[in-house]
């Protein structure tokens, strides 16, 4: 069982590597490539699902980087939620790309890196200590870069470089924090000592512990509390780069739209959540929520989140290009999550995790719908899809349902996460921020309605622009449509009956607070 953790991580990486390095000649035609890719998607996903569905608490120590710090995996409920979301979106966006990528070159390379990214993400979700997580975090940046750069145009190359530049800048900030935290990590009894493997009685392996591993007594004694807060803030901002948090969000609206649509869906829906996971692990499993509560770090973090969420929405409202609009929307929505996390209480935490799941599903559905529209019409502006609702009713209905979900209209899902977030904000006791948070959430929801709904309204109710829109548009192919329908159904059903998910998250929150 424990080895399956390793298999679920390594298997997609190996298959992806093979896929990249196999010469093109091996595949007689496109369909044989797709068959092989499809099977490898399924196998990778199965391995991951096997691990996720197993009990929490399985651990695996791979090897030791240095004498004390191992590469260490552990399955807990938080990792299971993230990994489950990743698998779900990975499969659907993957199958979607079978049709979508028929227009693009270098398909094999794309599928290869897509699989590798999936494996690395599994590693990120299952990481059991800070260093392992950091390793996979950096891998994730590197292996997802080829997805951004895929088209190879100058724009894509520049976007990918920007992506790397920002991500590494953030990662180094975080690395500083990791070095600092290591000094004050509580020492645990060495599990290997009993087997006679190593010399140390105790190790500081920086293992994730609900409530934090920080040895607070030692920290206070050393008088470095203020310095520690700075380090934690740097870690939050650093990992926040991946989550598109102001001020280091600018890579996101540049990098996501240039990728092929299924890759954008995966980047915007899933990979950015890597940053969120890293922040959750740092704040709640390394430092501890109590340590930050009431400090300037919490205030600054909440302010950054509020600024980002308003900024993202208003820029999305102003943006004309469909995919870029959705990317700005991602900036805004990730800050909902960060705002919730910054409140450091159970309700807001629940709201954040709910929004992680809902946003992953909704944003992938939106990007896939945008991809399907761009694929069938060849147009990229948000106002170009007038009157298409009659021709592609299923696609537009799915788009509308997930849009309503993102705005937060019952009975779709967004309202539930928003409810918990707002209640958490009001309970936080942060003074003005406690009501500014919900107010910002609602203003942002209004703007969300302003940038998503006109596309539906134009699609369904306006007459098509006959100069520009050909008459023979049909629903996209089934392989494109079905993933979108599944995602939309999930967004709706999770909103209608979220109780199991909420219970699972409550069990996590119960351990943290």
């Amino acid at each position: 069982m424990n080895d399956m953790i390793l298999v679920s991580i390594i298997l997609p990486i190996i298959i992806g590597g093979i896929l990249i390095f196999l010469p093109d000649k091996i595949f007689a035609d496109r369909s044989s490539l797709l068959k092989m890719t499809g099977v490898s998607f399924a196998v990778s996903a199965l391995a991951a699902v096997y691990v996720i569905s197993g009990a929490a608490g399985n651990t695996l120590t791979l090897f030791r980087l240095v004498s004390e710090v191992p590469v260490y995996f552990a399955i807990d409920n938080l990792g299971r939620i993230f990994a489950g979301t990743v698998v779900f979106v990975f499969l659907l966006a993957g199958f979607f790309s079978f049709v979508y990528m028929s227009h693009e070159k270098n398909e094999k390379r794309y599928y290869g890196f897509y699989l590798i990214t999936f494996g690395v993400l599994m590693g990120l979700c299952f990481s059991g200590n800070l260093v392992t997580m950091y390793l996979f975090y950096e891998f994730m940046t590197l292996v997802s870069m080829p997805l951004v750069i895929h088209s190879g145009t100058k724009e894509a190359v520049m976007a990918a470089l920007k992506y790397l530049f920002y991500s590494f800048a953030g990662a180094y900030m975080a690395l500083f924090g990791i070095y600092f935290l290591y000094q004050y990590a509580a020492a645990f009894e060495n599990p290997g000592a009993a087997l006679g493997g190593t010399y140390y009685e105790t190790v500081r392996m920086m293992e994730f512990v609900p409530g934090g591993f920080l040895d607070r007594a030692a920290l206070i004694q050393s008088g470095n509390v203020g310095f520690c807060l700075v380090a934690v803030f740097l870690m939050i901002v650093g990992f926040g780069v991946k989550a598109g948090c102001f001020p280091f969000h600018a890579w996101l609206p540049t990098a996501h739209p240039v990728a092929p649509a299924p890759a954008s869906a995966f980047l915007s829906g899933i990979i950015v959540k890597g940053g969120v996971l890293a922040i959750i692990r740092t704040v709640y499993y390394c430092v501890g929520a109590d340590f930050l509560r009431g400090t300037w770090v919490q205030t600054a973090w909440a302010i950054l989140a509020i600024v980002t969420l308003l900024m993202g929405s208003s820029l999305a409202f102003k943006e004309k290009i469909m995919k870029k609009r959705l990317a700005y929307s991602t900036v805004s929505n990730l800050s909902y999550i960060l705002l919730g996390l910054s409140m450091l209480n159970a309700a807001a935490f629940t709201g954040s995790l709910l929004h992680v799941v809902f946003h992953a599903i909704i944003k992938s559905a939106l990007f896939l719908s945008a991809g399907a529209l761009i694929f069938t019409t060849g147009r990229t502006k948000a106002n170009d899809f007038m009157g298409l609702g009659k021709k592609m009713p299923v696609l537009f209905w799915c788009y509308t349902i997930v849009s309503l979900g993102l705005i937060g209209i019952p009975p779709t899902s967004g309202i539930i996460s928003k409810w918990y977030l707002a209640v958490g904000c009001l309970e936080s006791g942060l003074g003005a921020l406690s009501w500014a948070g919900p107010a910002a959430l609602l203003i942002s929801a209004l703007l969300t309605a302003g940038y998503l709904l006109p596309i539906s309204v134009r699609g369904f109710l306006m007459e098509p622009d006959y100069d520009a829109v050909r008459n023979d548009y049909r629903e996209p192919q089934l392989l494109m449509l079905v993933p979108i329908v599944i995602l939309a159904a999930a967004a709706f059903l999770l909103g209608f009956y979220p109780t199991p998910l909420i219970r699972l998250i409550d069990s996590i929150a119960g351990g943290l607070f």
Partner: protein
Amino acid sequence: MRNTLWIVLFPFVVCAVFCIVSRAKTKDKRKACALVMILAGAVELAAALNLIVCDLSGFSLGSTFSDVGGLGLHFMYSGFRGIFGMLTAFAWFVTSLFSYEYMKNDMNVIRYDIFNLLTLGATMGIFYAADLFTLFFFFEIMSFTSFVWVAHRQTREALYAAGTYLGIAIAGGMAILMGLFIVYGRLGTLSFDRMYENAMVMISSGSKADIRWLFVAAGCMFVGFGAKAGAFPVHVWLPESYTEAPAPATALLSAILSKTGVFGILLVTLDVLPMQGSWGVFLLIVGIITMVLGGIRGVMSSNFKTTLAYSSMSQIGFVLTGVGMQSLLTEYLMGIIGAGQAEELLVTADARYVDSEAIAEITRVFGMAVNGTCLHMLNHLLVKLVLFMVAGVIFKHVGSYELNQVRGFGRKKPFLLVVFLLAAAGVGGIPLLNGYVSKTLLHESIAEYGKWLELMEYLSAQSLLPAVSASAAMIKLVETLFLFSGGLTVAYMTKLFVVLFVEKNSDKKTQERYQTKKDYASMLTKTAIALCALPIPFIGTLPNHVAKPVAEYGLMRFGLSDLLQHQQENIHYYSLENLSGALISITVGVVVYFVVVRLMMLRGISPHKKTGGYHDIFPRWINLERYVYRAVLYTAVPFVLGIISRILDSVVDIVVILLRRTVYRDRALPYELPEGNRVTHRIGYTMERVRLLYYAVMRKEGYKPKHYEHKLALRGTDFFENFRIIERSLSFGLFMFCVGLGLTMIYLLVVN
């Protein structure tokens, strides 16, 4: 079926079935769909009636649908909910009867029907909701599904109106949600029963900050609920949306959907801010502005349906005034009950203002306000169903709602005459019809409250009497404006009546066509209209037998209203005192009609001129929607936010660029200049840039490069070549020698 859940769920189930069935490709699909709609309406109505019967026979009703939507949906039953649930089902039933003919040849009927069913389910959910979250849940569904009604025609105007409708609905929904957050944060519950209890505890404990938060919450919720009701600052969507939606949909919008908004405000008033007089004052002001403004716009409009739309707004103003009066009266009642227990007061002469007789009297007044509000909602619902369906019948044949086109349509059509007259006179407050009853109740409650306040202010030197939020002068003004708006109602209804039934069309042929048309409405349509018109005279003539029991059954159960349970006595509606109010209104109405409509709106009317007729005389530039809301919310706010965001967005990028231009400069590759040297290159480059800048800023025309670098390089080469020749020449040597001699001389002079 003794379960409130099923009545809410049923339309959604029918809708799902309907979606599947409507895919079938049969010839009589339209007819079948219309029949399904009628059947669904009938079943829903039966279920709603069943609930009332169950309640009367003593079953307790209510249900929970836990875990749905995160917080679970909770339903409950009370008299008020029962009545309005029943009326909702009734309205849907009659409009589906009406739609059978009206929508026969319309486009997108299936879509219309589907959203109609969804809206029905959502509206039922609102009326039976037991907590604010359930209410909000269904309120949002209703807002979105009814959007399709407004956009139904898909014309430019319809889409514009629908855009406004959706914008206000979403903004209002978010405002309600904010209110919900605050209420949940402060009161710890969203269930209506416990909210009231917790609010009372909070108010009696008297924490100012908490109560202020409740006021903020109520204000937020007012934006959302008031928007649906059509209350003053957020009514802007109403006239256009009502005009653009198809007639049966407008009937429902005006009759039912506006009541959901009022229902929300009522719940906020009763459960979130019980006995807060300043909230009552706020509602009173809003109500007065709404009813006067709606009345004025109604009189001045030259469009049949728009007049009715503004009439709706005006009547909602009457209802809101009633809600405000309820709030004020509970505050007063609480005050004197509290003061009655104070012993110092009981020995003074003021004791008679707080004794049990006074309490009974105020309770009676309070009862009038409560009943008046409930009855006016009911009356307005019936009347607007009739009027909008009549408007639909007219539109079906005239193809326009313009008064000049419509003129003379009703002549020689007795059925139309009777129902229109009943409804128009009913809402106008003519005695013996329903509007008179409710308006009298509301008017009496205002007048009596004013009298008590006057007495109180006379004696207010003793500060032992309770402080109230309203002043006697204000209530006097409210009473005057109330009667004035009643007059406006009479005026615009007279206008419509005269246009339809008295005047002839300016085009003789058209008039002939109108008059010869006998089969202008099918039996089904007539039945639908008649069903709604029938109760109007009954409520009016037998107020103590029909109106009173309904109002009593529909009493909202909360705190002080328990006092009303057995204290309601028959009111002499047709006493001289009560009739005089109606007479004042009618007089005002007649005067306004002759001055505004006949003198100002009717211009250039003569048989020869076709252009003559009714003109809209309300100035066009006063358009709150276009010049304030759209301008601010669609343009200004996103613009400002956009600029700020754009700056924030590019902060890091700008820093990076600045750094690269200054400190972290990419080192230029060491390469040989093709011509010239560093100095000429730099100067030439700078000159070229300056010139480029000059052209870009000042001249704004095509820029042709002058190649300064090249020219300077040539000059430079020339200069250095010449210099080298000179350098090598004899004269240069002599020149240098002279310079040396000169320097030596200066040295000698200076040193010595």
